[in-house]
């Protein structure tokens, strides 16, 4: 069951990450168009504002993908010194803390959206974007992150309980397969 769950989560997040990337690319396109237009004395107007919204939405929706790719940086000074069971416990406890924190963040993001909906707030900009329009997808990304974190937590706990440490390490361990990360 846990294997199927993890596989589904991976597939979904893979697709979401591609969509997120496409969103970023189209944003790059808009920015480029604006630079060119400015040279000929015109402008789309509001590209900065759009970039900001894209960044917020892309960030929140990319979080869960990064989680499953083991992309969120962890330091394994102590973890690297213990055995397989110890590592599994480090991973599981760290995963629980992450899940709790992310849930709290998502919960605390709701009032921001609720206020925009209640007041029908618009951005104080030339575009006068209705804030709810961009905040709802942003908020949904954090909810998705929390949901994926909970499901991954459960799946990983099952793996650890069954003694399948190698699989659990691949799911919630410290390093991804791909080192192309970071700065």
């Amino acid at each position, binding site marked *: 069951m846990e294997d199927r769950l993890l596989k589904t989560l991976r597939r979904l997040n*893979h697709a979401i*990450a*591609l969509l997120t*990337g*496409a969103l*970023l*690319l189209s*944003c*790059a*396109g808009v*920015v*480029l168009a*604006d*630079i060119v237009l400015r*040279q000929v004395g015109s402008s789309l107007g509001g*590209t*900065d*504002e759009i*970039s*900001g919204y*894209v*960044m*917020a939405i*892309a*960030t929140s929706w*990319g*979080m869960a*993908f*990064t989680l499953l*790719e083991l*992309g*969120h*940086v*962890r*330091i*394994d*000074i*102590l*973890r690297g010194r213990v055995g397989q069971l110890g590592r599994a416990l*480090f991973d599981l*406890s*760290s995963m629980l803390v*992450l899940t709790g*924190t992310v849930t*709290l*963040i998502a919960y*605390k*993001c*709701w*009032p*921001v959206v609720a206020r925009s909906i209640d007041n029908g707030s618009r951005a104080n900009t030339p575009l006068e974007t209705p804030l709810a329009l*961009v905040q709802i997808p*942003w908020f949904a990304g*954090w909810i998705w992150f929390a949901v994926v974190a909970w499901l991954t937590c459960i799946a990983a706990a099952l793996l650890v309980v069954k003694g399948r440490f190698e699989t659990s390490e691949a799911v919630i361990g*410290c390093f991804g397969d791909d*080192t*192309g*990360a*970071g*700065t």
Partner: protein
Amino acid sequence: MILAIATGLLGLLAMSIPVGIVLFLLGFGVDQFFSAFPLLRGLGNLVWSTSNNATLIAIPFFVLLGEILVRSGVATRTYSALDRWVSWLPGGLVHANVATATMFSATSGSSVATAATVATVAMPQAEKLGYDPRLFSGAIAAGGTLGIMIPPSINLIVYGFLTQTSIPQLFLAGLIPGLALALGFMAITAAICMVRPELGGTRRTFPLAQMLRALLELVPIILLFTVIIGTIYRGWATPTEAAAVGVAGAMIIAAIFGGVSVRMFADSILGTVKITSMIMLVVIGASFLNFTLASAGLGTELQTLLDGMGLSPMGLILVVVLIYVVLGFFIETLSLMVVTIPIIVPLVVTQGFDPIWFGILMIVLIEMALITPPVGLNLYVVQGARKSGKMGEVMVGAIPYVVAMLIMVGLLIAFPSIALYLPSVLSGL
């Protein structure tokens, strides 16, 4: 409060909780124990306002640019072209490692990406031509660190964002120290190989015709750098917008050199999303922690502490350098930067130091952290690309370059104009 936070930080990091989450937890702690008002209420707004930010979109753009160049094979061509030009020096191909890293730094904002790029293309040559594996791989790890110094730089963007400093000015300030470090790396390599020629493999010279043809291979990268930096300084685009220009440029280059495929493109996008979210979790966490620390009155507390220590401004800088060297052994670089900026930068600026200068000094120290064990990301990246030999070899090989960086730190402190000359000459941006 300072002691509690420092202990909490180290303890939670040691439990191998993700760095971004640790920052949030510390923020919760400050709210719970040190603040008179409930700060948690501001959390949602803070997460929104930090990520709804047009400046930060430069991060995914620069990451994507690097991913495209690496995955399309442009890196390999650049390496072999530079090999034609620098392999006559004592140390031969080792110089090509540094030179390639320097060129890639000028288009990539990331050190790990730069090191990974060079390591992938260079490693197969090392054994074939009889190089000492230590020096060879150490040079790649060190050269890669230039990625965050030579503009564009993701770390400088984050620094500028968190400290409200001008990003174009930071980019300008990083140029001379970055190039100086690259030359320093090459000088040290040559010096070592003159004393111990057996480390340096075969020196090779190439006919002039081949060298000239190789120059052609360098044109795309140089052009890309010129376009990115040019659009910023001609005032056509902000650093963020220039990043979008860079993405388009990288795609055109990749298309011309024939390395484009759907697969490669999808991989670049996935890599970009992963790295961006990783960075953003840390950045959002740091900005929440900053907010709680400022509200709880950390500034005053630090000032009192410092006044009590009776440090001179220079004494303060030396203490700060020492702190970074020590922390750099253990903490991953972006996290190190983001965690310390809210505490240290205000202190340093209050003492009358220039925030742009300090940003560059901090970057050199962060670069050092990238190649000092046990937590030195570049060392692992290079080792990962080697597939044989011991980790220790890379660490030993990096030592001479750490020395070069320490010299650079000294020079920057003694002559701040190394960093500040360009921004002051080209100011008004």
